[in-house]
């Protein structure tokens, strides 16, 4: 068996004139959690629908668990689990009825489908839901049942499309802990998210997607390093002095972000100590009072804004 669970080469998919996937490449190693990070409309859901055989790509070579998603769709379907953005459950039926039905459709046979349903209900804390229809479940419960349904056959590859969108913090924590418990069982997980925190928390590697293409890829640390390392944050006592401070600090004014509400200016630095001492000295000499000065690693938000912002500028005609 290859070490690669997902291979995507030059995937394209158009809806009318709009290119949802525009030559997307992706490789996901077996047994890892791979995050697909991007804004709304970046092509994340289209990618998951193509990978899970729900949508036929216009072009590209796409293999999941060693099988082509177009020509060997059935072989792919026996090896994947899918947790889409919206609950893929029969809302009129109860939790057990849903899982038993899906188990039979995976051809487990009636008895094993029943046993598997019980196991999963127990594992996801849904054993006491009885006959209650799924339509009356809370958002978090529905998501857990949905996740249970995608795990009926212990899939080789599990797709999670924005698994926590629309959940409250408690529901989100429930889903996160469920996903974490899967890792280590050898399942490959592909997770799409708009939440940088989520990718940072769950994914081994992250692909940043924008306009149907991967614009950056790496571990969370690598992506942060790609921004040029650390940042310095300076909070002033008087917001009126922000402009003056930007002008005299030993920083490139083009890189400085100013947040007037928080009286904050923030900039990337190359050498931590030189930057820190330089800033402190310059402020002191100008008589500008600082409330706080801190060196820190960039957040994924900043990485993301940096990457997609650059990308948009590059595409705009000069």
């Amino acid at each position, binding site marked *: 068996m290859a070490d690669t669970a997902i291979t995507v080469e030059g995937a394209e998919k158009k809806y009318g004139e709009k290119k949802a996937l525009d030559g997307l490449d992706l490789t996901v190693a077996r047994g890892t959690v791979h995050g697909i990070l991007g804004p709304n409309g970046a092509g994340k859901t289209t990618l998951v629908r193509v990978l899970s*055989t729900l949508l036929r790509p216009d072009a590209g070579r796409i293999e999941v668990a060693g099988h082509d998603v177009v020509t060997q769709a059935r072989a792919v379907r026996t090896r994947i689990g*899918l947790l889409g953005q919206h609950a*893929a459950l*029969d809302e009129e039926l109860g939790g057990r009825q849903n899982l038993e039905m899906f188990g039979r*459709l*995976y051809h487990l046979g009636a008895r094993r489908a029943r046993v598997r349903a019980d196991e999963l209900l127990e594992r996801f804390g849904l054993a006491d839901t009885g006959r209650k229809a799924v339509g009356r479940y809370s958002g978090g419960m529905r998501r857990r049942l949905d996740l249970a349904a995608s795990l009926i056959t212990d899939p080789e590859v599990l797709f999670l499309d924005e698994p926590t969108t629309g959940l409250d913090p408690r529901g989100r924590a429930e889903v996160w802990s469920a996903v974490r418990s899967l890792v280590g069982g050898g399942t490959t997980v592909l997770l799409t998210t708009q939440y940088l925190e989520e990718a940072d928390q769950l994914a081994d590697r992250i692909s940043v997607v924008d306009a149907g293409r991967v614009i950056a890829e790496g571990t969370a640390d690598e992506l942060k390093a790609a921004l040029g390392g650390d940042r310095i944050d300076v909070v002033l006592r008087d917001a009126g002095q922000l402009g003056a401070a930007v002008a005299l600090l030993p920083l490139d004014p083009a890189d400085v972000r100013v947040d007037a509400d928080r009286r904050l200016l923030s900039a990337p630095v190359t050498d931590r100590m030189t930057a820190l001492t330089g800033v402190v000295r310059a402020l002191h000499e100008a008589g500008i009072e600082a409330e706080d000065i801190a060196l820190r690693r960039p957040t994924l938000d900043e990485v993301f804004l940096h990457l997609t912002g650059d990308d948009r500028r590059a595409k705009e005609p000069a």
Partner: protein
Amino acid sequence: MTPTAYALSDSWTMTRRELAHWARQPVRIAVGLVFPVMLLLMFGYLIGGGRGVAGSYIDYLIPGMLALTMAFGLESTMIAVTQDLNKGVIDRFRSMPMADGAVLVGRSAADMLQSALTLVALMAVGYALGWRTGGGPGAVLAAVGLLLLFRFAMLWIGIHLALVAGKPEMVQAVQILVWPVAFLSNALAHPGTMPDWLGTVVEWNPMSHTASAVRDLCAGGGTDHVAAAVLWPLILLAVFFPLAVRRFGRLSK
């Protein structure tokens, strides 16, 4: 198991899903049974009066109502399929290694079962209203067979329209169209009472052939409508069954 065995088992699982819905929503089934009975009473007593019909109007009306109810089945099938397609669960079905057509087969099995129940209910009410058949059990069974064949054709038209329209808003448009098409038949009134051109249209309506054949069979007389009542649904099926199956396969595009 062989692919055929899988297809049968998947279809049975999908049929059971529909039956489980019934068990959870018995009121929905009851309403489905009451509605045609209500129509029957309305046309039999409120509006009726045997327009140009020789003999008992109830003997004319009941077979017509049976055919009319089968025609309206097109709507209920279309609504159910449209709702199904717009539910998230269809994505899970399609991402699973199940037989391609099982979702549609489950739907048609459940709809046919409901239609059979509706026919039984309508015939029972008809009997209570004084409807009597001159034909033997064999002839009545043949009539029921023709009605179900007609319903089966309506079912696949409904599935196809649902797949083409896709959105619940389109269901209303079809609902509005089904009524005049269903009433432009000899279900309620004899074509002899209509202007010539209208009478011709009405006699061409496939539903009229089913209604006439059922009338003749129930009356116990000979009939020259059976051939058309068999042929028309088969033609409709030959057109819409492959269209619907192909359309369902193309959802991935």
